[in-house]
């Protein structure tokens, strides 16, 4: 009986979580499983944004076709990142605008793709995961989560159910942190200025931790916070929701 009700969900873990912060991926798995999903993670690499956003549309298409193939059989594809979810959801259909067969398949994947926090909140309507986190946290809206996927309220509502957690709002929460994929290495001075502004507004909240739903922003902001010796810890929002934020944050000293 239980098996019938279980929803089969594929996790598109994203290359940055895969390589840098596996724990964010495991936190996503735990959240999905506790909401009653059966999670699978087909072999995957990247959504193709580096090629796409650098104008290399032919490699972007090749990578997109690979993702469309690998994630073909699942009712839902869940992505713990607004920008990678946006790539699958919004940009894949555009990439194949002149190729009806693949465009159809891209649209089909688009309809099945969800950003993690909005999937938990809006689709599964599972909002309380029983986690505890003692302290004040600031949530950073990634540009893609906010403007491409429309995740804003959902993240805050999920976090507000975490026992012991107080939520602080960042000033200029709609402003980009300066990551921008390869932008941060192509225009380091501009990126540095933007992430410095963001790190300052994080510190101004007095929060103990900074959370976001996108590892690009998190690595960028954590990198800056570590450089200026800030005490603010940095986690993927899923880690806090899954009760997995008791260890070192992103870029923190590891326990011996």
């Amino acid at each position, binding site marked *: 009986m239980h098996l019938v009700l279980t929803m089969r969900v594929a996790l598109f873990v994203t290359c940055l979580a895969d390589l840098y912060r596996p724990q964010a991926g495991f936190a996503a798995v735990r959240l999905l499983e506790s909401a009653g999903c059966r999670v699978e993670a087909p072999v995957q690499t990247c959504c193709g944004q580096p090629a796409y*956003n*650098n*104008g290399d549309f032919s*490699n972007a298409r090749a*990578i997109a076709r690979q993702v469309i193939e690998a994630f073909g059989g699942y009712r839902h594809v869940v992505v713990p990142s607004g920008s990678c979810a946006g790539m699958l959801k919004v940009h894949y259909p555009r990439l194949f605008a002149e190729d009806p067969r693949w465009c159809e398949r891209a649209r089909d994947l688009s309809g099945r793709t969800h950003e993690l926090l909005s999937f938990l909140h809006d689709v599964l309507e599972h909002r309380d995961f029983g986690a505890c986190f003692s302290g004040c946290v600031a949530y950073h809206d990634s540009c893609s989560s906010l403007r491409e996927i429309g995740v804003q309220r959902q993240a805050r509502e999920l976090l507000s159910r975490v026992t012991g957690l107080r939520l602080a709002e960042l000033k200029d929460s709609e402003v980009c942190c*300066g990551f921008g994929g390869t932008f941060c290495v192509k225009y380091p001075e501009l990126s540095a200025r933007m992430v410095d502004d963001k790190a300052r507004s994080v510190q101004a909240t007095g929060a103990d931790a900074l959370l976001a739903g996108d590892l690009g922003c998190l690595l*960028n902001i954590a990198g800056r916070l*570590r450089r200026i010796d800030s005490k603010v810890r940095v986690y993927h929002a899923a880690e806090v929701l899954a009760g997995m934020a008791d260890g070192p944050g992103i870029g923190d000293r590891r326990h011996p």
Partner: protein
Amino acid sequence: MRSTAHSFRNNVHAALRDQGLQRALHRVSGGFADKRRAAVEALPEFEALRAAARAIKDHTLAHLDEYLECFETQVVAGGGTVHWAASAAAARRIVIDLCRQSGARRVTKGKTMVGEEIAINRALAEAGFEPVETDLGEYIVQLAGELPSHIIAPAIHKTRADIADLFRAHHGRQRELDSARAIVDEARDVMRERFLSADVGITGANFLVADSGSVVLVTNEGNGDLTATLPQRHIVLAGIEKVVPTLEDAGILLRLLARSATGQAFTAYTTVFTGPRRADDRDGPAAFDVVLVDNGRSAMLGSEYREMLRCIRCGACLNHCPVYGAVCGHAYGWVYPGPMGSVLTPLMLGLREAGDLPNASTLCGRCEAVCPVSIPLPTLLRRLRGRQHAEGQAPAASRRVLALWAALARRPRLYGFVMGLGVRLLAALAGRRGRLRRVPGAAGWTASRDLPAPAGQTFQAAWRRQRADHAR
């Protein structure tokens, strides 16, 4: 003014270190954005107006030839003249000929971005005329010999002290200039005499109304009206995309324009000029000339950048752009800065000149979100990057890295193996510190931030191991 868009990186470097500029930027940062937000929140139908505005623009662009011809017919019927300028050079020639016909010496100017685009001031001066900017910001920029740094706030990069210094140097008056009021009073004083002695007045146009042959102009200083009505000839410089079918259409766009630009419900002056002075008019110019400037716009119309022609030059994308906010307008190197400039400049001057502009954006999407005519600016920027890539213009080093990465990303097994080694190596280098202060080949990142160390094992490797253990 010659473009420095090709040295964008150096311009950025200098702008970030220019303390005067950073002080000026800091004071205004957020001001326009906050005012726009308040204005939009106070107007429940804002989104509906946005949709209507976009539809008006799209419709007009789809029938641009008809509406332009209709506009010309109406202008001629009202006693005015329409001149068609295919290029910047043609537009300059037309304006100079008209000034000569009027026997002009002094030419007053209202604010016109297309005037900057065709560099009309320099052409006028070289032809022996004295061009005088009458918008306060433009006047300041003219005294300084600079380009506007913002399309609606041209002197936004100047502090009050900078302006006082300029006035002292150019006006030769002994006057206290210690307050904004004193500065404005002096400008008004100087300007009054120029208005009264001008032979030709040149203005831009916010909208051209096809069915009446009217020109709609908005200002906050009233300088446009004095420029247009006092001299014997009024020349209007306008891009061909400025035409709308009716005055009602212009009305819809006007409701969006000031709110998007400065957060005002309406600008202080909104004037509709229709033809030269008529027999029973008490004032107005004897001659009314409209110069319709193409300068690359027809080519845009027939391309995948057509949506850019919806732009109404409100400046909202500049005011909400984090890159513009960090370096201000001059860093972009030419007339149009910010996201709209990063699309327009490469289209008008070429990607070889302005290749950095479409790349120097995180594609954060805030510009598109606030654009009153919903121009998909990030999509257009990405398209320009696509053209650059297709034409082999991207820097060789970044092309090689990207090609290598793509080759891996298309081979999942190999990717897993290579990346697995990479993360193990980085984790080992970082040790317990959990971060790296320097990474060979990643100086761009580590100049200002640490590189958080990866965990040492990829998610996929750990996941498969876990599943295998489960199965056992």
